[in-house]
């Protein structure tokens, strides 16, 4: 019979793995995890900003269809280079974003927790159908599942779907299965549920045929059934699909902010 060596690396790995999973499941590993997360969060945030700068730059390059776009791209390139070379300027920008957010929050009497994005996580490992954001605030900071998340402009960009002690996962409004109770600012104040569509736009389904909706109508949160207050802007209607033989009609909504460039946001505490 073959004897298993004591210092067999596979055996050692399995023992350590079992121990880690056991300690994690009973919560004994949590203090260690929190300390480690606390240490790496600022670094993660910087890494994410760096990646985002590149992403932003790349996105701008793809959209160079006209001269004005080229000018814009060059302007942003200059901005990107300036930001990259000067940590101070980045801090100034971040500060102004936080001020904007603070102004929005104080104007609306919202209690909120400001957070930084530290990573993006795909819904299904590497999927392009939608992405979630990971922020550096969690249960310890008062963040809870179902709470709304707004951008610096005060536009709702998603909601909290998972939490850890010191971090939380947010689904973006454009991601599939990220549902929000919404209302259209038309005469009938049409209510419905919004859902993300391929990570690009938002769809509002099950709107009765008799309701009159038109492109350009603003869609806001309805405040029903959850932790998200009423009146946060989701986006604008860009297309309405209604077939005469259907019971329902649906609307395509465009978010008002670019969800790919979010680095700072606020979680609204109800």
């Amino acid at each position, binding site marked *: 019979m073959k004897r298993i060596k004591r210092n067999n*690396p*596979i055996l*050692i*790995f*399995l023992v*350590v*793995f079992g121990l*880690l*999973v056991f300690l*994690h*499941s009973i919560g004994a590993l949590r203090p260690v*995890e929190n300390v*480690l*997360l606390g240490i*790496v969060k600022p*670094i*993660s*945030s910087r*890494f*994410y*900003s*760096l*990646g*985002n700068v*590149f*992403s932003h730059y*790349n*996105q701008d390059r793809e959209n160079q269809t006209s001269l004005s776009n080229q000018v814009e791209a060059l302007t942003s390139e200059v901005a990107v280079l300036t930001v990259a070379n000067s940590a101070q300027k980045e801090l100034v920008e971040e500060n102004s974003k936080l001020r904007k957010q603070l102004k929005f929050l104080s104007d609306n009497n919202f209690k909120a927790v400001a957070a930084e994005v*530290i*990573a*993006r*996580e795909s819904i*299904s*490992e*590497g*999927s*392009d*159908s939608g992405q*979630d954001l*990971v922020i550096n605030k969690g249960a310890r900071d008062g963040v809870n599942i179902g709470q709304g998340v707004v951008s610096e402009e005060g536009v709702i960009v998603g909601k909290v779907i*998972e939490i*850890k002690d010191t*971090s939380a*996962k947010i689904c973006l409004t454009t991601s599939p*299965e990220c549902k929000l109770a919404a209302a259209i600012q038309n005469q009938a104040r049409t209510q419905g549920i919004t859902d993300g569509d391929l990570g690009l736009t938002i769809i509002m389904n099950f709107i009765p045929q008799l309701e009159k909706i038109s492109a350009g109508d603003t869609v806001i949160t309805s405040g029903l059934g959850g932790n998200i207050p009423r009146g946060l802007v989701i986006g604008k209607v860009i297309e309405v699909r209604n077939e005469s033989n259907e019971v329902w009609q649906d609307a395509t909504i465009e978010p008002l902010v670019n969800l*790919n460039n979010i680095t700072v946001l606020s979680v609204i505490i109800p």
Partner: protein
Amino acid sequence: MLKRFWQISIIIFILSALALLQFSLLSALPDPFRQFNLVLTVLIFTVFFLDLRLALISAMIAGFWLDVLSFHFFGFYLIIFFCILLLAEWILKNWLTNRSLYTLLALMIGLTFFYNILSFAMLYMFSTDFTTFFLFKSSFWLVLVYQCFWSSLSAIFLFNLAAVVTKRIKPFFLEKKRFM
């Protein structure tokens, strides 16, 4: 003893940095750049050029970090990396026994495929959304193509880099003596 301590510290630092780069920096990049699996590439490279023991230590460190940082269930990355390395070792011992660029390319692409199958399957098993099986989703195949592209590219780069640094992968020829 002190040398060993420093060696382990450096390995922990490098692998932690790689895991952090994978989690925060690469995830923020647009497609196809964000599909580059840095940690997986380094692990395959380690088992190919160095040994299984070091690769398993690396997998333990990087896997632990990714499990702590990510929102997948704890042990997700640890178990995937473990399976990948075991498969790599088995392939290297039984099938791809020489150390050529083609071997590394085949290993990288094969293991990238296996990594994706395994990770998607595990996520599918623990998911509540059973609407479409992952093999029938276009996103799965698109990710696979991107990852295979990056794996091939990194294999070529790393192999040539290693060829400069070490003599281990240089071919040798037996010289035939000519008898008069």
